[in-house]
């Protein structure tokens, strides 16, 4: 095979895997929330936008390095998610599903339009020297920012796994996901656990936003696109399936990247959507799931 074509293939593949890592991070948050609360969070991308704008605002006002703003964006995201779940969404009571879908849709509109009021519609970016720098590995160009984002994603997902399977809190989260009533009877404060889970989900979205900031322009409705990506990732991996979300993210990144390079760049977003529809129709339990019940 032509070596140039081989390099181009690997270039596209690496690009897809790294972008896919970010999709995985966003999808993991959404999937975690769905897994515990059976809530489809339509504001997920808007939480990502909040992360982006926190990073942007800190850079513009205090000249703080975008990656350092993680220290602000992640806790802020967690706090926001905790409060929203504990004091707003929990009021929906038994009317989860449809009710929560509409409520989070409303939240998303409130967030994006508030950002619009605060920052204007103009796309803005952070100008850091390393934003566009790359290094070359076996002829494949890798963007430093994208690599950092990919590694950050792995770290967060590894941390989440430690939390879920090595700590008491993790046991309580898993118990709440499996059987909220049973967990409550065993002394787990499920309302608190659900708020923590929502907080974690929002924090993941905010972290993804910060990691994307050196690579992308921030604008108030940037989240819309990422809400869709998060849905695609979670459906590919199986709703509520966390390892599935990681693989789903990588698959989406690679599908988009290969499709854009080999078929038509204009339809980049369409390949994921078509894969999403096919999986939704043929294997609603996700590509790798076995037992997730159809809702």
């Amino acid at each position, binding site marked *: 095979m032509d070596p140039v074509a081989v390099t181009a293939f690997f270039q596209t593949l690496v690009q897809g895997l790294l972008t896919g890592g970010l999709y995985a991070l966003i999808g993991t948050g959404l999937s975690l929330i769905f897994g515990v609360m059976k809530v489809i969070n339509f504001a997920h991308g808007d939480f990502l936008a909040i992360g982006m704008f926190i990073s942007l605002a800190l850079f513009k006002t205090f000249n703080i390095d975008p990656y350092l703003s993680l220290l602000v964006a992640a806790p802020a995201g967690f706090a926001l998610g905790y409060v929203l779940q504990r004091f707003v969404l929990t009021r929906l009571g038994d*009317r989860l599903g449809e009710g929560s879908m509409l409520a989070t849709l409303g939240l998303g509109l409130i967030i994006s339009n508030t950002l619009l009021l605060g920052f204007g519609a103009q796309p803005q970016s952070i100008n850091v020297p390393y934003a566009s720098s790359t290094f070359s590995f076996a002829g494949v160009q890798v963007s430093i920012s994208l690599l950092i984002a990919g590694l950050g994603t792995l770290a967060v997902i590894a941390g989440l796994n430690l939390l879920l399977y090595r700590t008491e809190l993790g046991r309580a989260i898993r118990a709440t996901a499996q059987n909220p009533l049973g967990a409550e009877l065993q002394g787990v404060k499920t309302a608190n656990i659900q708020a923590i889970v929502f907080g974690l989900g929002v924090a993941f979205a905010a972290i993804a936003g910060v990691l994307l900031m050196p690579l992308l322009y921030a604008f108030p409705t940037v989240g819309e696109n990422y809400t869709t990506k998060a849905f695609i990732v979670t459906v590919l991996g199986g709703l509520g399936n966390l390892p599935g979300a990681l693989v789903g993210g990588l698959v989406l990144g690679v599908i988009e990247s290969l499709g854009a390079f080999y078929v038509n760049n*204009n339809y980049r977003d369409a390949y994921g959507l078509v894969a999403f529809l096919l999986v939704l129709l043929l294997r609603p339990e996700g590509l790798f799931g076995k037992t997730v019940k159809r809702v």
Partner: protein
Amino acid sequence: MTAAPVTLKRPRALTFGNLWLSAAVLAVLFLYPFVFGKTMNFGISTVIFAGLAMSWNILGGWAGQTSLGHAALLGIGAYTMTLLATPERVPAFFGGPVAPWWGALIGMVLAVVLAAVWGGLTFRLRGSYFTLSTIAVALVIRLVAINSEWTGSSEGLFMPELPTVFGLDLFDRRTEYWLAFGFVTLTLLVTHLIRRSRLGYALQAVREDEDGARALGIDPTRMKMIAFMISAALTALGGSLYAIYLQAFEPHTLLELPISVQIALMAIIGGRTSIQGPLIGAVLLATFGEMFRNVFSNANLLIYGVLILLVTLFAPNGIMGLFSREGRKLGTAR
């Protein structure tokens, strides 16, 4: 799904099905151009969106299938009518531009065909999964419109010169208002007819309890499909009218997710289980949007977000639900 304990409940359908209320609303809309003749643009777009919200409600309210993809159907109506009316874009065998009323009709037929295929594929999915699939379908259609030469790609289309209807100029704001008024009357009429028909009762049964409805011998997929096709036809008709009103449009104004969300939220905020709810919701939201236009400039969807959050938390059956005891007491059953 766990088996719900059998309990007897009051019927959930609300009581705002009477023709008098609809007639009163239409009477108010009829007087609009005589009282507010200076603000016709607001009136036309509000009345068109009221009709769109009611069209949405046939699927979203009566059948309980929350679609967030209706912008695609709106777009089909607008694009079909405009493309067929533009001489340079009409394929030779049509032999020249097609009159807008025929174009609108063809758009409706195309929308029905799309809805049949779309519904046939996605009605196996329930609840939120169905909603997710509608977003995906609409986004794919949007991408096609943005990237295709024949749809004018991202620049969109200009409305060509149109023939007159009974000597009336279609680009005259008053004519457009009466067309919009006719559209809203039609959707209201169709909704009333459906409510009192076998289809209407079957749809409500499917909405409240799909498995229960099946046990009664109702074919839920068939019922949802019929509702989708009627909803699609009316939405496409609204799309054609909207295109005439806009005179120029691009994918961004017709096919984006926020348009779908806007139509759905109008119906849901007004009250999806009543007949006049979507109409009231559309008028209310348009008025609020207009009032806050100067305050919020282009962040006018903020008010939609606040209202939908309040409605889902405190008035699950929408504004109209507040006026009936059942509507206040019961959540939207799912």
